[in-house]
């Protein structure tokens, strides 16, 4: 796997990781302090990170397409 692909995968993994830790924080927030306002803010972060993850996957996808069509790659 070349370095560009590794970097693009890394870029997609970061928002995925944020989705995971925010989901855990959301669960804990509702379980322990039941702060709904805070939980809503956490869900907003999750939605934003999903979008960020999707953008990173789009970049990865077009990179892979380009490298297939390019004879140099």
């Amino acid at each position, binding site marked *: 796997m070349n370095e560009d692909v590794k970097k693009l*995968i*890394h870029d997609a*993994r*970061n928002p*995925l*990781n*944020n*989705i*995971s*830790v*925010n989901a*855990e*924080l959301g*669960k*804990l*927030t509702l379980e*322990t302090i039941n702060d709904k*306002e*805070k939980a809503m*803010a*956490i869900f*907003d*972060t999750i939605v934003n*990170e999903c979008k960020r993850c999707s953008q990173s996957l789009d970049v990865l996808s077009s990179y892979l397409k380009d490298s297939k069509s390019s004879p140099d790659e």
Partner: protein
Amino acid sequence: MAKILLVDDDQTFVNTTRELLEMLGHIVASATSFSSAKEILNRQSFDHLILDLILPDGSGLNLLESIEDHNSCSVTLVTGHPSVKSLVKDLLGPNISYLIKPIDLQQLKAALDTTTSSIAELNSDKDLHFGCLVGESKPMTNLYQQIERVAKTKANVMLMGESGVGKEMVASAIHSASQVKGDLVAANCGALTSELIGSELFGHEKGAFTGAIQRKEGVFERSNGGTLFLDEVTEMPIDQQPNLLRVLETQKLTRIGGTELINVNCRVVSATNRSEAQLAEEKCLREDMYYRLAVFPITIPPLRERKEDIPLLVEHFIKGFNREYESDIGVDEKSLERLSTYDWPGNVRELRHAIHRAYIMADVTTNLLVLPENFTSPFSKAENSSPGITVGKTVEDVERELIESTLKHYDGDKKKTAEVLGVSLKTLYNRLNSYSEETA
């Protein structure tokens, strides 16, 4: 409860994980760059470091190298791929764990389990006072008495003492003796910029400023019902002090960008390494703030004033290292005597550092610490000749020492020496002539 430093360049990850760890009852500091993490590590020690290896301005590995020299803490690497494990395993040894992205709560708890269990083990040592303080000398007995007394009240405490005396440990002792329900939350006023300090102390509402993507509770709110430890309080910008004063006076705060008044109820333990005289002279703390923060001032004694505690501290540190490295190193009488007679200008922190070094250099055949030839560190203020004021010296002796030290400091430049000492060049020559006559 562990004291954790979280270092990662992804701000969202840092904010969220910090909150998660705090909800699990840990004290957390965070950094998003190598330089800020290094700065925090230079000021504070941690039980656990959660670290991203690749940071925008340097490698996390370099950070680990500096930690090995100055701190003793468990390390968890945050990595996107399990293969990193094998790459750094040989380099970093067994005292390391990994968090593989995406991280969940179970992983996070498991990584911290070792630290919290070792802290619990450490705290269960029967010779520790309030679970963290070591020493049976008179100055320490006095200190324990003050901690016990103030713990029964709600008074704010200001801790004073030289660098390395263990101010954070005493704050922890006060918190533990108070038996309060809330947490001990620490904030270093010296590590925060004046732009960030308000948000860190009082929190902010979503959208309060650029980058405030969600509501954040400040340290005052997080320590509600517990203890707020404000380290290096005298480093707080003077223009920010009225805001803190208002909260201390009213016990109410408003988050930045918010309108709701929030009640806060916590004991504030602040710390400074400046003396009372310096506080007044340097005007780094407003007078009204001093009276609010230092309702009960406590001066922590320097190690040189409680040398009889050195063997106990040495034993305590060796016990800790033996537990950490699963070894059985000891110390001989001669080494203990050398350790007990040194002045330790860097106090307990310097002693611990020296023991750690001697532990690493320990003789494998005798299993005994090997001390260096001298203990002088770049920060040692003590000199072999020990000049200074001691009872029994005459005014003439002290004056001579002052003149000679100043002259030595300026490489024999008499004009500069006279200027600095505030005497005429003629007076300086007269004094020096009289000294050479005395010697002859």
